[in-house]
């Protein structure tokens, strides 16, 4: 799969990183809620048509290294254009994406491998920034948010690595319900067959989230995902669901998915 151009996400992350850093710096220099350190030099690698877009978090560098190791390549003089910028550099080798058929829990990142370690750290920071920036957005049905575009781009570029990190991020952080809903809806809506199974696996547990709003969002995400495999999970959710309106909505979603399943069977025969 050829990844989508990602300058937009890079610029988005870079500009928001600056805002977040500044906000945090005002509270407690260099160690706000986003936990950025004074000398963080690199927060993300995004693949673009013309090469790789790198987003740097640089603030008052005193000892800027002349070059930085990224994967197997060296990038010379990356700080020339000044701090807080997104820069396009010559194409670097793609970091191998592992098989999406493996289950998430079976394949934790190996932090001893340098490129994976880099990827993990970079993605983690990028995702952190996207979620911090997302707090300032208002989400509307049927309207693309900058937050969802950023998530889509990261997933399209890093596929299962990104989804794994999103999953970790969602479970290990307290996420605002609107932001969580937008994330789930984006995961359901994404047109990317290669990550469909993993997105499905992430969505399913949210059917039993304590918040009815999040359960509702999860149902809608599964409706958008159009995976009939969700039917038994939604049935279980109906059995446990205390609220009538959600039961009815889940039933409607099951009907839709059953229609899709029937159409798939018809096509196959």
């Amino acid at each position, binding site marked *: 799969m050829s990844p989508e151009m990602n300058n937009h996400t890079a610029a988005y992350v870079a500009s928001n990183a600056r805002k977040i850093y500044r906000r945090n710096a005002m509270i407690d220099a260099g160690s706000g809620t986003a936990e950025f350190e004074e000398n963080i030099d690199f927060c993300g690698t995004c693949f673009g048509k013309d090469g790789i877009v790198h987003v740097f978090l640089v603030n008052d560098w005193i000892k800027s290294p002349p070059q930085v190791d990224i994967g197997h390549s060296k990038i010379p003089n990356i700080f020339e254009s000044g701090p807080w910028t997104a820069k396009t550099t010559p194409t670097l080798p793609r970091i191998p994406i592992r098989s999406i058929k493996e289950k998430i829990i079976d394949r934790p990142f190996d932090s001893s491998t340098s490129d994976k370690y880099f990827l993990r750290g970079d993605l983690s920071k990028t995702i952190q920034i996207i979620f911090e920036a997302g707090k300032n957005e208002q989400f509307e049905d049927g309207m693309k948010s900058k937050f969802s575009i950023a998530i889509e781009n990261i997933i399209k570029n890093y596929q299962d690595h990104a989804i794994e990190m999103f999953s970790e991020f969602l479970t290990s952080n307290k996420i605002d319900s609107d932001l969580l809903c937008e994330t789930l809806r984006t995961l359901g809506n994404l047109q990317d067959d290669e990550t469909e199974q993993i997105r499905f696996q992430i969505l399913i547990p949210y059917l039993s989230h304590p918040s009815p*709003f999040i359960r509702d969002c999860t149902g809608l995400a599964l*409706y958008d995902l159009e995976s009939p495999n969700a039917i038994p999970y939604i049935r279980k959710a109906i059995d446990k669901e205390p609220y009538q309106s959600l039961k009815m909505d889940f039933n409607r979603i099951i009907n839709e998915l059953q229609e899709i399943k029937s159409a798939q069977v018809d096509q196959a025969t």
Partner: protein
Amino acid sequence: MPKLIRQLSSKIWLDRQIAEKFGGLQADALKNFKTSENKMSVFKVDEDNKQESVIRILVALACGRQSLDKVDYALFDSNIIKKLDIQVDEIEGTTPDQTVNKLHIDLKKLSGDIICELAKSIQNSGELKRLYSKDIEKAINEGIEKKQLQVEKINSQLLSKIK
């Protein structure tokens, strides 16, 4: 009693059963009643053809979006507006459906207290419903076919996603 329709962000915030457990109107429910210059849009439902009118209004509203998505809505008696002494302006809407535009009403001079009362009244006596994206897609196609919708006024991003 004529009915009014209000598009909601999420009907679940107004759910009666959830509100009962919560102990009243949730603050989140007010997200459904965003105002601009203390005004808020609603639409009159054509009583002669209620179901078709509801769908036509919702579809016209969905045409302003960038992508197909569900529409949550509340259907409620216009009597609520009278009881709360809310002022109205029958101002033509700006959707791609001219018939729907004539059904548009601005509720005006809304105070925070009135919005809360309106939300409570809709929660207690309104119908909270959802139109799914597939229904909307079908209805947009029908609207285009019947020339009810002015295609040039439909969001171009949305139009490119309609099958």
